[in-house]
C-alpha cells in the first residue's frame, strides 16, 4: 500500500499552456458530471414526492379512470429510466415540458422569471464589486488599525447573517422609518429604467451585504500581498508617489484576481435570491422554484432547479477561466 501511496506524489511539470487547457478541460468535465448528478437528484426527488401526480393535479373528486388517463398522457406510468430520459432529452433540446399546475409551457413561466432574477442579480453585482473592493483596499492600506478591524468585523458579521434578516432591518430602516425606498421590489408595469432600479435597490442591498464580507476579505488579502511585494518597494525606491504606486502597481496586480474570485460567488447570490425574492414578493426564478415545490409541480421544479444549476455552473466555469488565465501572472509576481 505504501507503494501506491508514494506513486502519485511526484507531479510532472508541464508547459504552462497545456496546464491551463488541462485544468479547464477537467473543470468542464466536472461541470458536466455535476449537471448530470443534479438532474438525477432532482428527478429522484420528484419521484419521491408523496402522492399520485394525476391525483394531485385533478383533485380528490376526479374518477380513477381520469387519473389513469392523465398519468398515461403525461408518460407518468412509464418506467423511471425512460421517464428520466424523456425529460432530459427534451430539456437538452430546449423543450421543458408543461407545468402541471398552470398547464402552460414551463419555458414561458421560467423565461421571464429568469430575466427578473438576472436583473436583480446584475444590480447586486454592479453595487457589490466597487463597494467591497473599496472596503477591502481601505482595510488593507490601514492594516491592523481600527478602520481595518471595523471593516473586517462588519464584513464577517454581515456575511454570516441570513440575507432575509439583513433585508428586514433594511426594510424597517429605509422603507418603513425613513420611507426613502419602496418596500416591494416589483415596479408598477410600464415603469422606466430608473424606477425599476429604485424598486430593486433594497433587495440588492441585502444581497450586497452577504457578499461584501467575502469579496472585501479577498481584496484585502491580495492588496496586502501586492503592497508587500518587491515590485512595490522598487516602485517606491524609484521615486514614485504613493498614489501612483497604488494605482499603477498595487491595484493593478490585486484587482484582477479579486474580480475572478467574485464570479465564484454567483452561487451564494442564487441561493440568496431564492429567499430575497419571497421576502420582496419579486417574481424571479427563486419564487417560481419555491412555489413549484410548495405545489408539488414537479415538471416546473425539475427544470427550474436544473436551469439554476446551469447558470451556476456557467458562472463558475467563466470564473475558473478568468482565474486560470490570471493565475500565471500572480505566480510570476510571486510575493513570497
Amino acid at each position, binding site marked *: 500500500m505504501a507503494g501506491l*501511496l508514494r506513486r502519485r506524489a511526484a507531479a510532472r511539470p508541464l508547459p504552462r499552456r497545456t496546464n491551463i487547457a488541462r485544468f479547464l478541460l477537467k473543470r468542464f468535465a*466536472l461541470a458536466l458530471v455535476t449537471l448530470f448528478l443534479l438532474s438525477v437528484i432532482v428527478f429522484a426527488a420528484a419521484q419521491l414526492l*408523496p402522492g399520485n401526480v394525476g391525483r394531485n393535479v385533478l383533485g380528490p373528486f376526479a374518477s380513477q379512470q381520469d387519473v389513469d388517463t392523465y398519468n398515461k398522457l403525461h408518460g407518468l406510468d412509464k418506467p423511471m429510466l425512460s421517464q428520466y430520459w424523456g425529460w432530459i432529452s427534451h430539456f437538452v433540446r430546449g423543450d421543458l415540458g408543461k407545468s402541471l399546475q398552470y398547464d402552460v409551457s414551463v419555458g414561458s413561466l421560467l423565461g421571464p422569471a429568469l430575466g427578473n432574477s438576472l436583473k436583480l442579480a446584475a444590480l447586486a453585482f454592479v453595487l457589490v464589486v466597487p463597494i467591497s473592493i473599496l472596503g477591502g483596499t481601505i482595510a488593507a492600506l490601514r492594516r491592523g488599525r481600527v478602520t481595518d478591524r471595523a471593516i473586517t468585523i462588519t464584513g464577517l458579521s454581515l456575511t454570516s447573517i441570513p440575507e432575509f434578516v439583513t433585508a428586514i432591518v433594511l*426594510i424597517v430602516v429605509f422603507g*418603513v422609518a425613513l420611507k426613502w425606498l419602496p418596500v416591494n421590489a416589483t415596479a408598477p408595469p410600464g415603469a422606466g429604467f430608473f424606477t425599476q432600479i429604485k424598486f430593486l435597490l433594497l433587495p440588492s442591498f441585502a444581497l450586497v451585504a452577504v457578499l461584501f464580507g467575502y469579496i472585501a476579505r479577498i481584496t484585502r488579502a491580495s492588496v496586502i500581498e501586492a503592497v508587500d511585494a518587491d515590485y512595490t518597494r522598487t516602485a517606491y525606491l524609484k521615486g514614485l508617489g504613493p498614489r501612483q504606486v497604488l494605482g499603477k502597481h498595487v491595484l493593478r496586480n490585486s484587482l484582477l484576481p479579486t474580480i475572478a474570485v467574485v464570479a465564484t460567488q454567483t452561487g451564494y447570490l442564487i441561493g440568496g435570491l431564492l*429567499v430575497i425574492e419571497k421576502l420582496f414578493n419579486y417574481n424571479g426564478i427563486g419564487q417560481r*422554484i419555491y412555489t413549484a415545490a410548495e405545489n408539488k409541480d414537479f415538471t416546473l421544479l425539475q427544470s427550474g432547479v436544473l436551469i439554476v444549476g446551469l447558470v451556476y455552473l456557467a458562472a463558475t466555469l467563466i470564473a475558473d477561466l478568468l482565474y486560470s488565465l490570471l493565475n500565471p501572472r500572480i505566480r510570476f509576481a510571486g510575493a513570497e
Partner: protein
Amino acid sequence: MSTTVDPALVPQAAPPPSESRIARRETLVQLLRSPTFIIGTLIVGWWVFWAIAGSSLTPHDPLDQSAGQLLRPSHGHWLGTDSLGRDVLSRVLAGASDTFKVAPLAMLLGVGGGTVIGLIAGYFRGVVDEGISLVINSILALPVIVISVVAITAIGSSNATLIVVIGVVFTPIVARTVRAAVLAERDLEYVAAARLRGEHAPYVMFVEILPNVMGPIIVEATVRLGYAIFAVAGLTFLGFGVQPPSPDWSLQIADNYQLLNSGTYWWTVLFPALAIATLIVGVNLIADGLQQVFDR
C-alpha cells in the same frame, strides 16, 4: 500520602499531568483570554438559557393569543404583539428552542460524516481520493438552499428531515476541510512509524491522525454550527423548516413580513430578525476565538 499535609507544600505529590492535559489546559486559558470568545459565549449562552427555560420564564405564554392584535410596543407588551395577538417579547425569548434542537444535531451529523470521509480520502489518496473528491466537488457546486428545498419537498418537512438534509449537505464541505488537514499529516514520521509497526489503516486514521487534526475539525464544527443556524433560518422562512405554531424566529418573520407593505407593524419582524443576527454573530465570535487559539 493521606495525612493532612498542605498540598501546596508538596508540589510533586499529584501525579504529573500528561502532556495532552497540559496542552488542553493551555488552550482553555488562551480561550478565556480571548475577548471574542468570551463575548460570543455570553451571547450564545443567553439564547441557550432562554431556549431551555422556554415559556416558563417569559412574561407571557408565547402561544397565547388573548392580547389585542398588532399592539405597538408599550408597557404591557414591551415589544408589542403580532397579527394573532401574541406577545412579541415572549416569542423572541422562546424563539431559539427549535433552532437549538435542529442546528447542533445537523452540525454533528455533517461533521461526523465529513470527518470519516475526509480521513479516508486524505489517507488513501489515489483512486479513492479522486472518486470522493469528484462527488464532493460536484455536490459543492450546487446551491445548498436549492438542494435542501428539493430534498425537503420530496421527504416532507419535520425537524428530523431538517437535521438529515442539512447534515448531509454539510458533509462534503467538512470532508474537504478534513481531507486538507489529513494531507498535511499523513506523510509525517509518526504516521510512518505507526504504519511500520503494522497498524491497520483504520487504527492509523482514527487513533494516530484524528487527534492531530482535531483543531481544524473543532473550528470547522463551530463555523458549521453558524451555517446550520443560517440554513435552518432560511429554510424555515421559506416554509420548509420548523413548522407552526413554534415561536421560531424565522417563522415569526414569515408570518408577519407581508405586514411591512403597509408601512407599519415593524416590531413584529424587526426583533426576531435582530435575535437571529445576534445568535449567528455570537456563534461566529466563538468560532473566531477558537480559530485564533488553534492556528497559532
